[in-house]
C-alpha cells in the first residue's frame, strides 16, 4: 500500500484562483506581427498567452500559437480577427497587459508591459 496509498487517503486539492474578465491591449505593430506569425491559420489556430512560475521575479510569460484546444477554462478575446486566449487561472495576473512588437536586431519581438506587476526582470520575460 505504501505511505501515499490505501483507502481513505484522499486529500483536499488546492486550486482556488481569482478569475477576472481579461482585457488585452495590442499595439498596431503587435497585431501586424501576430497576423504574420499566424500565416493564414486564423480559423484553426489561436494565440495563448499564459504565465508560469520561474524567472528572476517569480513568473514568466509564455506565448504560443497552437491549434485551438477547445478548452472551457480559457477566456477568448478577438484581436483583429485572431482569437487570443488567456486561461482563467492566469486572468488576474495578465488582465490589462499591453503587448507591443519591436523590430530590432537585439531584444526585438513581442514585449509585454504588465500593470499588475510590482517588478520585472531586465530581460522583460519575468515579472512578479
Amino acid at each position, binding site marked *: 500500500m505504501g505511505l501515499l496509498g490505501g483507502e481513505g487517503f484522499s486529500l483536499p486539492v488546492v486550486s482556488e484562483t481569482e478569475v477576472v474578465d481579461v482585457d488585452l491591449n495590442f499595439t498596431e505593430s503587435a497585431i501586424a506581427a501576430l497576423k504574420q506569425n499566424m500565416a493564414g491559420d486564423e480559423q484553426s489556430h489561436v494565440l495563448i498567452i499564459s*504565465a508560469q512560475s520561474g*524567472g528572476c521575479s517569480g513568473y514568466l510569460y509564455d506565448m504560443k500559437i497552437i491549434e485551438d484546444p477547445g478548452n472551457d477554462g480559457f477566456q477568448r478575446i478577438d484581436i483583429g480577427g485572431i482569437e487570443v486566449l488567456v486561461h482563467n487561472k492566469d486572468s488576474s495576473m495578465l488582465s490589462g497587459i499591453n503587448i507591443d512588437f519591436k523590430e530590432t536586431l537585439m531584444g526585438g519581438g513581442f514585449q509585454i508591459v504588465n500593470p499588475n506587476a510590482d517588478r520585472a526582470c531586465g530581460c522583460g520575460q519575468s515579472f512578479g
Partner: protein
Amino acid sequence: MSPSLPKSEFFIRNEANTLIQGPDSLNVLDRIVSTKINDMPDLSRRNVLFCDYNGRICDVGTIYTITGNLLISSSNSQKEVTRRKLVDGTSWDEECEILVADEALFRISIFHTDLEEIVELFGADICDIDSDVLFEKDDHLFVKSETTYGITMDILVKFENLENIVSILRESSLVEMDSNGWENFRIIHGITEICDSLGNLPDEMRLTNLVSNDKGCYPGQEIHARLESRGRKIKCLCRLTGDSPLTLGKQKIPGFGTISISSANFSGGRALALALIKIGNSTSEFIHIEGNNYTIEIMGDP
C-alpha cells in the same frame, strides 16, 4: 560551549505537508526553488529554499520523491504562500495537482539515533542505507541524515499509524521531546527554522548549500549569483548563552550595534538564543543585554 549530548530523543515535527502529483510536478517545483531538484532520483530527499526576487528566504522545505509523487514538508507559517506559488506557477498545459496533506502525513525525527535500536523496533534493515535515501517498510518511510550532531533518522508516517509508531517509541528507551525541548535542542545545535530565516539571505543562515548556482533562473537567482561572485557577508548567525531569559526581536545594544534575536529558550536556568549580528561586531565574546551578560558564539556550518 560544548553541549552535553542527550540520549536518543524523538520529536514529532509540526510542519505543513503538501503532496504534488502529476508528470510535470518536478519541473513546476524546480522553477520555484533555489535548489536544483530536477535530477532527484526516486525515493530520495533534498532540502530546498523558496526565496523572493531579492534573494531573501520566504520558506524552507524538504522534498521527498515518492514513486512519481513529490511530498514537500515546509513551514506552517508560510504554507499558504508557498502553495499559492505552486498553484499559480503551474501552466495551463502542465499536469500538476497540489494537495494538502497536513493532517495525513507526519514526520518523526529521532536524534542521536542508535540504528540497531530502530532495526529492532521496526524490523527495518536501515543500517546500511545512504543519507537522504528513502527506505520503505510497511507503510512508513525511513530516511537518515548525518549531521555535526550525529545521525538523525526521520520516519514518515500516515496519520492512521502515528499513534502506533509513537507508542512503540515511547515504550522503548527513546525520550520524547516536547516543543520546549525541541527549541532548546535546535538552538544548541544551530538548527534554524523559518522564524530565524524568514527575510534573511541564505549565506547569513549558513544555507548556501541550498543555493544551486548552476540551475538557471529562479526567484532570487540574480542576487544569489552576485553574492556568490563578489558579495561580502554582512551579518552572521550566533548563539547567545546566559542566565536570564532573552526577548525575541531587534535591539540596539550600546557599544555593540543591532542584534536580532529570532529564537530564544530558557530551561534549567540557562537562556539560549539564536541571533543575527553584524560581522564587524562578532569579535566580541560577550554582549550585555538589559543588565545581563551573555556569551556570543558564531555558528559554524550546520
